[in-house]
């Protein structure tokens, strides 16, 4: 029936037939194309001044497979972003440091090096002088002349014990590689560290140690001739828990963009309790704790070249945690960068209105009045509680300080607080810290290193909930002076209280229980003796 109808239409009105027919087959021939749009960006800079040429420049062969290269710092009208090191004509490294160890080389071979500095605008300095060095021929102690250099030996060794970690540093009379074995027993089976880099000075951090435990260790060094000797055999004892408060956060943590790379710079806390920093990166939000993202660096350097950090993601968030030698991290200093933001525009953006402060919770947003005022903010410096006035908090330039906000005055949905202050004269020096809830839950806190320059530092404390909504902020100023008028200090306080109180209470409780158990045991003994 339908066929006949179609035939009739085709015979009488062919145009109508084709329209009907086409409508029936069209679903079969619909285009299934795929499209994707993206941007191509090019930054044209107004800055054309190139950095100065790195000088002096030196290359030194340290073994049959390693040459060390060192150079002097360049200067620039803006900021030197880093250095590109070339072997022959091939670029082999990009670094913010002033030294590089080229390893894996062929014995008895001459290599030529030069270095160039570059800035954020892509201006590149002229090449340094080209210098050559020849790696050692392969020599072992069997064909070593009698009058040649003595076997390696130590000139210094230092061990900084923490609660669950220790930092071992040593210096030898000549460049060596080393092997370190350590453990609780003579078998030294708890840990093993090896470095194949020839250096006169080495340092390593041993993690995962037990608190208040004696560790034995043996340190072996190997010189360029392959001679391995026992440099040191000894022991160290880790600290018991809660012996040290956290160190302050790093100072002036700055992240700047250079094409797809990110240059990170900061200042380490200048205290003996400082052990190392951990730099953590996350492309979703600011890492809130030391394992909340990709760990891109651990050590004691104060700069880092995060190569190709923006090759996959347009934005990266960084947090630097400073550890004390007990292995306790600071609250964290933060910075973020956005692809293609070059120079000052990419520096330490305050994350106000940034919807990626922390990992979002699923909690429903609750609207509560924001009651916090700047007068509620307090600072503890040198064990002295310093309250805020209406606009200012008066501080000394010489000591670290803890800034804190009482939890009771914050909305119940508060998850993250970011404290940001600005250097009074240098716009580039902007500091943002995460404030963390203390163990008792009574305050949100962050510890800052001493601010060495006097003046008024604009301060802003921004409060976010678990959904990254900004709940409110307070702002004022930190007034840094060389001496504080004694009238403003009101209340001496203990720097770190909660941890000690908890530990003290536990120790007291255990002591009482132990005493009771001992008495019961003795009574039982007496009773048994009596009946026997």
């Amino acid at each position: 029936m339908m066929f006949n109808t179609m035939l009739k239409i085709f015979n009488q009105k062919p145009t109508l037939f084709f329209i009907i027919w086409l409508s029936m087959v069209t679903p079969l021939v619909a285009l299934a194309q795929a499209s994707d749009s993206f941007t191509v960006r090019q930054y044209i800079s107004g800055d054309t001044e190139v950095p100065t040429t790195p000088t002096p420049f030196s290359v030194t062969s340290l073994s049959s497979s390693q040459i060390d290269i060192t150079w002097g710092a360049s200067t620039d009208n803006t900021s030197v972003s880093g250095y590109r090191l070339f072997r022959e004509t091939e670029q082999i490294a990009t670094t913010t440091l002033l030294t590089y160890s080229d390893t894996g080389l062929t014995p008895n071979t001459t290599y030529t090096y030069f270095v160039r500095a570059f800035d954020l605008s892509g201006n590149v300095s002229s090449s340094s002088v080209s210098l050559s060095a020849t790696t050692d021929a392969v020599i072992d102690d069997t064909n070593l002349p009698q009058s040649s250099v003595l076997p390696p030996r130590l000139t210094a060794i230092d061990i900084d014990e923490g609660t669950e970690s220790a930092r071992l540093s040593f210096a030898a009379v000549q460049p060596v590689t080393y092997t370190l074995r350590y453990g609780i027993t003579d078998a030294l089976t708890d840990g093993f560290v090896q470095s194949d880099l020839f250096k006169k000075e080495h340092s390593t951090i041993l993690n995962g140690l037990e608190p208040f435990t004696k560790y034995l260790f043996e340190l072996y060094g190997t010189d360029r001739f392959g001679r391995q000797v026992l440099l040191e055999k000894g022991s160290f004892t880790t600290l018991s828990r809660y012996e040290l408060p956290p160190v302050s956060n790093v100072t002036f943590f700055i992240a700047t963009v250079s094409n797809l790379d990110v240059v990170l710079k900061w200042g380490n806390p200048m205290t003996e309790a400082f052990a190392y920093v951990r730099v953590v990166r996350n492309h979703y939000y600011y890492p809130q704790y030391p394992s909340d993202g990709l760990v891109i660096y651990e050590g004691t350097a104060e700069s880092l070249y995060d190569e190709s950090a923006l090759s996959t993601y347009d934005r990266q968030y960084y947090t630097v945690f400073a550890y004390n030698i007990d292995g306790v991290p600071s609250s964290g200093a933060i910075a973020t960068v956005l692809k293609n933001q070059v120079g000052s525009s990419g520096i330490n953006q305050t994350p106000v209105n940034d919807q990626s402060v922390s990992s979002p919770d699923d909690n429903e947003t609750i609207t509560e009045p924001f009651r916090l005022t700047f007068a509620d903010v307090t600072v503890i410096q040198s064990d002295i509680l310093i309250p805020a006035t209406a606009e200012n908090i008066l501080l000394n330039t010489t000591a670290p300080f803890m800034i804190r906000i009482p939890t009771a005055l914050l909305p119940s949905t508060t998850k993250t607080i970011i404290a940001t202050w600005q250097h009074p004269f240098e716009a580039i020096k902007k500091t943002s810290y995460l404030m963390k809830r203390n163990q008792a839950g009574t305050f949100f806190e962050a510890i800052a290193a001493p601010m060495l320059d006097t003046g008024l530092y604009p301060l802003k404390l921004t409060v976010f909930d678990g959904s990254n909504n900004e709940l409110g902020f307070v702002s004022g100023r930190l007034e840094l002076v060389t001496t504080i008028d004694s009238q403003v200090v009101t209340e001496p306080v203990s720097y770190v209280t909660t941890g000690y109180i908890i530990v003290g209470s536990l120790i007291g409780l255990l002591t009482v229980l132990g005493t009771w158990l001992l008495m019961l045991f003795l009574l039982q003994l007496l009773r048994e003796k009596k009946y026997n």
Partner: protein
Amino acid sequence: MRQVLVTFGATVLFFPVVLFSWSLSLAQVMESTNYKIQSDSLNTGGGFSSSTNYQIESTVGEVGTGNSASNNFEIRAGYQQMQEVYLSLTGASAVVLGPAIPGVSGGNATGSTTVTVTTDSLSGYRLTIEAVSSPAMQSGGNTIADYVPAGANPDFMFTVGSADAYFGFSPEGAHIANRYRDNGGVCGSGADTNDRCWDGLSTTPVTIASSPNSNHPNGTATKIEFQVGVGSSVVQPAGTYIATTTLTALPL
């Protein structure tokens, strides 16, 4: 009546040949030297048909087919709804050319992105590129001109005079169009040499790669290199220049 039937049958059978010769999207299951058919459907009648070049065994077809969905279900009504052409375009990402170019002294910057086209279309695919604006690279009111090859084909080398500033691209890959292949000195045919055969974007789609065959499931990668060159005597205003670019993959 017989004449009408013959005409009708010929039309029904040969119209798809014309239609498919426009390179529309069907994954063919039947083919001759002149055409390929993904899935025939005579939505009225059915049965066996033949000519010199082909034979078709059709069933009574379907009407009222297609997709429908709600929160709880999705229906693909009709047996041919399961015979879609698979085509994907993946990997395109934002490109930041580097290094930054000093606006006064000039220089060159490069960058690239790599996309992969995968299709089970037996007659392959075509990949085109186009810019959203002309010229493509803009920053506020400032622009960088699209690269203009000297001849009809792309330039073997990316050449920018001291008084010029240009933005161009060069595709690389196994399926790039002949236009972007070279003989070691001239573009238009031959092999694919990296960083050679530079062209300028336009708002009209330009085919940069194609294949006459299915490449499912591995797909084929095409790398698109971009380059900006600013001549030494050009004072290019400072700023972030952005070119929004669209890649489109079409099954053949």
